């Protein structure tokens, strides 16, 4: 199921912007040697630092340009809040990362477009809540968004144990990929220009790749990234089936797929009167009344 339909134009925008964005991570590999080019003047990192937030904004605007259904939007906000609340749980403990687990599962259930938006909104909300806004934030948002997008693109027919296994494997892979990309982004900034592990402008790509591999192996792959991958995979295996069921139940209740049709002002006078009051399409299955009643009633029965 896909909550947010990705139109062909949106797919093209997503691909183009992602390609340009990938360059903002991988530029140290391709930077030319001759010193008179713009990329060498030390401006390149700054240009990319300015460029990426704009690209992320473009993708987000394009994804939501068809208008997000209010139910999808509320679901997005609530899941982003849960994700943002999960994130500080692991912070500080070496390598324990709790964000990707729900992101992968939600992307799987609600589709690629929703997964992309959820990745961005989760990290943005979490950064605002814990005051982690900085130049790294757009890069983190984009990486997380790619993870959510990829989870939505996994083959749809899998169910049961195979599905959980595939999701756990994807979660581990995504955790490593996230660590690698963020390291790649941080590489020029953390080292500066002329240590033995820094990138060398104009050197062959393989040479720079080797330096980067050593850098990332020394600094994080065996510690942080492995911890992150293990946490994600274990969380998906342990809680995956139950969370998937909860998410699918919510998706069914929200009835995202229901065709929106408005009944013409027909012979019965009651119907057109009801429509403007509730604001919900008449033909859509109505999850409304019981939800609203249960909510406004305060604590569910049995908890008072």
């Amino acid at each position, binding site marked *: 199921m896909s909550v947010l339909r990705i139109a062909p134009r949106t797919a093209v925008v997503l691909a183009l912007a992602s390609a340009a964005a990938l360059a*903002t991570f991988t530029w140290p590999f391709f930077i030319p040697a001759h010193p008179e080019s713009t990329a060498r003047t030390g401006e390149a990192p700054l*240009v990319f630092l300015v460029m990426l937030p704009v690209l992320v904004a473009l993708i987000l605007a394009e994804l939501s340009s068809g*208008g997000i259904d*209010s139910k999808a939007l509320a679901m997005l906000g609530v899941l982003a809040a849960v994700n943002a609340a999960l994130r500080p749980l692991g912070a500080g403990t070496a390598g324990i990362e709790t964000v990707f687990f729900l992101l992968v599962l939600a992307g799987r259930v609600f589709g690629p477009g929703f997964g992309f938006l959820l990745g961005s909104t989760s990290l943005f*909300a979490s950064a605002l809540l814990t005051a982690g*806004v900085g*130049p790294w934030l757009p890069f983190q948002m984009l990486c997380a968004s790619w993870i959510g997008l990829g989870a939505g693109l996994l083959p749809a027919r899998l169910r049961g144990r195979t599905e959980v296994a595939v999701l756990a494997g994807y979660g581990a892979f995504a955790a490593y990929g996230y660590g690698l990309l963020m390291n790649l982004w941080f590489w020029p900034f953390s080292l*500066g220009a002329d240590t033995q592990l820094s990138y060398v402008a104009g050197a062959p790509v393989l040479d720079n790749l080797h330096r980067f591999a050593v850098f990332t192996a020394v600094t994080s792959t065996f510690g942080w990234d492995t911890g992150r991958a293990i946490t994600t995979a274990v969380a998906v295996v342990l809680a995956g089936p139950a969370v998937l069921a909860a998410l699918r139940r919510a998706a069914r209740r929200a009835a995202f797929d229901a065709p929106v049709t408005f009944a013409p002002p027909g012979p019965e006078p009651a119907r057109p009167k009801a429509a403007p009051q509730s604001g919900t399409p008449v033909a859509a299955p109505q999850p409304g009344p019981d939800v609203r009643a249960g*909510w406004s009633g305060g604590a569910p029965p049995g908890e008072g």
Partner: protein
Amino acid sequence: MTDRRTGAASVRADSGRGPRRWSAARLPRGLHPGAWWWWALGLATAASHTTNPLLLALLVAVTALVVVRRRGDAPWALAFRMYLVLGAVIIAMRVVFRIIFGGGQGEHLLVSLPEIPLPAWAAGIRLFGPVAVEQVLGGFYDGLRLATMLVCLGAANALANPKRLLKAVPGALYAVGTAVVVALSVAPQLVESVLRVRRARRLRGATGRGMRALRGIALPVLADALDRSLALAAAMDSRGYGRTAAVPAGQRAATGALVLGGLVGVCAGTYGLLDSTGSGYLGLPMLLAGLAVAVTGMLLAGRRVRRSRYRPDRWQPAELLVAGCGLAAAALTLFAGSVAPELVYPPVSPLTWPEVTPLMLLAVAVAAGPAWLAPPPGLPSTRPPTVAVPVSDAMASTRASDPVTPLPGGRA
């Protein structure tokens, strides 16, 4: 919010009398978040164009001064210290990496550490070895520059209200901004949800610990949150969310073409920037032009969204002054760099003592302007009067120099 209204009212009442008008403009209120971001980005630009440690240290000091004088008491305002710590970590990391992995040869040997050769897979890399002053100093200068830029952004975080900033996002990002606002409002409610589920579990006599208890709490909380989202969607529907304006098909096609064309330009520009044989026009100019075109398309697409704003933030003279201070500081630093590059970028070899020119001092002084030019931060406005008595008294004592504001239940 209350302050804004009283401020506007007294301006109208006292128009024509100079001193009172000035004090009315300085009534406590939250500045437009965009103004703080422009100021901070200006300072970050200034910091990025120098490695002079004295100038950078002055910029950090000025930033801290403005933050301390003009921040409110919101949670995001208290995180400035974290950015300072992070900056220190960056500097330490740069220096330590220089010492471990070498690089940046110099003549003045500081200490000679034993070398450790690495195994074959890391061929060509040695650890430790001789450490030169130039090498450590180069790392320190670089790290300080990066840390200063970070601290500037941290200042914007501490000073600007993110919720107000989300209100000002362009129309095309309205849906995503709304989702973030929903997330920010729901997150505190999750705590309440967790407490409720725990209480219900205890009442049922469940004493399980560890994994079982975690599932017993986490899943109901998740289900509760998902149900909440449906209720929220119904509430949004009933309040008219999702109203869109009819945009002619031609205009829709035009915005789409602008976004796509701009992105193609961005890709070409990026390629030109990184291509070794790239000619001049295919690099940075192409990239910037592509970005501009795509952003124009995005802004045009936002006209589809129709919304009204409740108490919009306006750009008033104070906002313009604060933003101008940041931009002027950046311009002055750039100018100082073109006048005396060897002072703005002090060389590490040969070792030279960094100096500060009057032009740099002027840039720093301008950057400090908002500490006095910006109005004091708004007082918490949503407090019931009965609770506000002791709190506002305590606040009044710290802000004795500020003009008296009609606080509910505060001092007279």
